[in-house]
C-alpha cells in the first residue's frame, strides 16, 4: 500500500528517473518512437527539481520579492 504520487510529486512506480533511464537506453537500443524523447536539458532540469526542488523553493520563497525584481531586471536587459 503506497500513495499514487510520491512525496517528490512524481508518479509512483514510474518516476522521472526511470523516464531518464529508458530515454538514455533509447539512444543505444531502438526502443520505439518517442518523438525526440525527453531531451537532455529538460530531463536534467526535471530530475533536479524532483529531487532538490523542495529544499530549493523553501529557501527561494523567502527572497521571492527580491528574486522577482531581479528576474524583471534580467528580462528587461535580455
Amino acid at each position: 500500500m503506497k500513495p499514487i504520487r510520491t512525496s517528490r510529486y512524481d508518479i509512483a512506480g514510474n518516476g522521472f528517473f526511470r523516464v531518464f533511464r529508458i530515454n538514455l537506453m533509447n539512444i543505444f537500443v531502438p526502443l520505439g518512437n518517442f518523438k525526440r524523447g525527453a531531451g537532455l536539458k529538460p530531463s536534467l532540469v526535471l530530475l533536479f527539481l524532483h529531487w532538490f526542488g523542495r529544499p530549493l523553493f523553501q529557501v527561494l520563497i523567502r527572497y521571492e520579492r527580491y528574486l522577482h525584481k531581479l528576474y524583471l531586471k534580467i528580462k528587461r536587459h535580455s
Partner: protein
Amino acid sequence: MMRNTFYSLDKLIERGKHLAASCDTISFDLFDTLLIRRIHDPDVVKLPVARYISSLAGHRGINVSWQAVQKLRNQIEQQQRDETGINFDDHEACYPVFMEKTLREIFAQHYGDSLLEQVTDYELEMESRVLVPRRQLVDWLIELKSQNKRLFIISDIYLPAEHLRILANRAGLLDQVEDVISSADTFLAKASGQAFPLIEKKFNLSKASWIHIGDNPISDGLRPTEFGIQALVLKDGEEKFRKALIKRYFNYGKGRPFYRGRALQQLMLPLEGENIPRPDLYREGYNFLGPMIGAFVQHIGEECRRLGLTKLFFFSREGYTFKRVWEQCVPTLFPDGDLPEIEYLYVSRMALAGASCAHQGLTSISANIALLPPGNKDFSDIARIFQLDLRRLEPYLERHKLSSASCLSPLHQGYDQKYSVRLMELLEDAAFQNEVKTQVSEPSEALIAYLSDIGFFRHQQVGVVDIGWLGTIQRFLYDAVKHRNECPRIHGFVFGATRGIPFRDDLKNSLQGLIYDRQRFDLAASTILYARDVFEEACRAPHPTLEQYERTAEGYHLKFRTKDDITGMAEQKQDEYYAPLQQGIFDAAKSFGAASALLGYALEDYRPWFHYVLTAKLAFPRTSEVVDMRHKSHLDDFHGTNTPLKMATGNRQLWDYEPMALRFLPFLRLRLFWRHIREVIKS
C-alpha cells in the same frame, strides 16, 4: 496590529489557533489558500471554455477558432476592468457581464438565453475539477466552526459570490462558512483594502477580533493590517515547488511531444487528502492503464464525430470497462455533446461463432480462426466453437476421409498437410454447408432478434469498441448480419489489432487498432504483445461471458456461462484479484477527462509518452510489476484443452518467467527485447 508571514502551513495554523482563541471572526482567502489549483496558471482553465464556445459556435454555423474566442474574452474582460477603474480603486471584472458580452459578440442573432448558463456551468465544472481543498486548512475550518466562530471566504476574482458558493460547495467548504464574498459583486476588492470596511458593515463585525488569512502579501497582508485586522500570510514553498514542476511539464510539452503525456499524468496526480495509500494494483490501474484507456476512448469520440456515427456499441466483456470509462470522462472532454448514443452489446466469440455461419456456411477463415489457439487441434474443436452437432456431421467428414480426431493444426503431433487439404474440400462441399447452416439457424435467428430489439439495424453507421486482437467478434458479427439490407456500416475500434489472421476491410466493415495496429510499424506499441492477457483481464466485465443466443417464443434469450464450475470460480477469483486495478482505471478516467480537456491534447499528442510507458512497463518492467500485474488465471472458452508440441508453442515470454529469474538473470529483458524486435520486423 501585526502582519505575520509564514513559510509553512503548520506554523500558520499553529499561530492561527493561538490568535483564534481571542477572536470571533476568521476570514479566509479562497484561491491558493483554502483551495489549490492542480495547474500552475489559473488562465489555463479558460482555454477549454474557449474551445467549448468555439464548438458551440460551430454547431450554429459560426466559424470561430478557440484562440479567437479567448482573445475576444480577454479584450472584453480588460475593457470592463478599465471601465471599473474609472469609478473604483480596483480594476475588477464580473464574469456574467463580460462573458455575456463576449457571447453576444460571437453568436450575434444566434445568442439564446441558455447560452450564458451553459458556458458558465462548464467553466465552473472545469474550475471545480482543478481545485483541491487544502486538507489541513479544511480540518481547521471545521474545528473553528465547532467553536462557533464566524467564518467567511473573501476573494478578489471575476467570479461573483454566487459562483464561488458553487465551487466552495463542491469542495465541501460552504457548510462551514457564514458567507462567501467576491469582489466581482461590488468592485470593492481586498487589493485596495475597500472590501474589508464593506464586509465589516454588512456583517456587523468587529475588526479587533477578526483574523484574515490569505496568500497575497498586499491583499491579504498589508491591506487588512492597515484596516486594523490581524493578518496571517502564507508563503508556501511546497506549492511553489509543485507548481514549478507542472509548469515545466506543461511548457516542455509545447515543444517536445514526449512531455504532453507526462504533463497529463502530472495533472492527474492526486493532491492533498486525495493522495492516500492504495494497493499496488490500484496504482498500476491509475498510473499505467487508466491514462491509456482514457486516451483510447477520447480518440473514439473524435472518430465518431469525424465519421458522423449515430450509435456506438461497446462489446465483449472488455467493452464494459471501456463504456464505464467513456461515461466518466467524455462529458468533460466533449461538453457540447454531439456524440453518438452508446450501448453495451452482449456478444462473445463463442455466442457469435455459430450465428456467423447461418448464411455463408463455415468458411476457411472461420475454421482457421478456430484452429489458431494452440489448445485447438481437430474438427471437434471447430464443432465446439461453432456449436455444431458433430454426430450429424460425421458422414460428411467420412466422405472426405476425415474424422473428428484428425489433427488439423500444425502445432500438434499427428498433423499432416493432407488433412488441411481435405478440410478445404469439406468446406467446399455444398451438402456439408447446408447441414451447418441448418444447425446454426436457431442461434442466428435469436441474434437477429436481439440486434433488432436493441436497434442495431436502425442506424446507417455504427461504431463497435473492443480490446482487440484479431477482431474476431466484429468479424463474426458482420458475417452474421451482412446479408441483411439494413445492415449498418460497421466501424471497429480496438485497443490493439494484432491481425494474426488478416481482417478483410470492405465498404461496410472496417477495423482499426488505436493504441497498437500491426499494419503500422510501431515497435514501442508492439510491446503490448508481451502481456496481452493483462489488458484483457484488467478490462474484463464482472459478469460471466455470453455463451449462446437462444430462440424463445418471445424472441430471444441470452444464455450466460455458469459461475459455479471450476473455470467460473477461477474467473471470479481473478476478477476479485484485479478489482483494485479496475477501480484504479475508473478513478483515473475522471481525472483524465479534466486533465485532457485542460491540456487540449489528443491521442496522437500522448502517443510518444504512451510508447515510453508501454516499453518501460511491459518490455522493461520491474519484477514486482510483473508479479503484481500477471494474471492468476485466464479464462478463454475459445481455447481447447489439447497440449501442443513444445517447439510449436514458441519461446518463453518475459512475463512467463519466475520472479527469481526476472530479478537475477543478467540482461534478460534486453535479450528478450532484441528477440521481440526481430519478430516484429519479420512479421
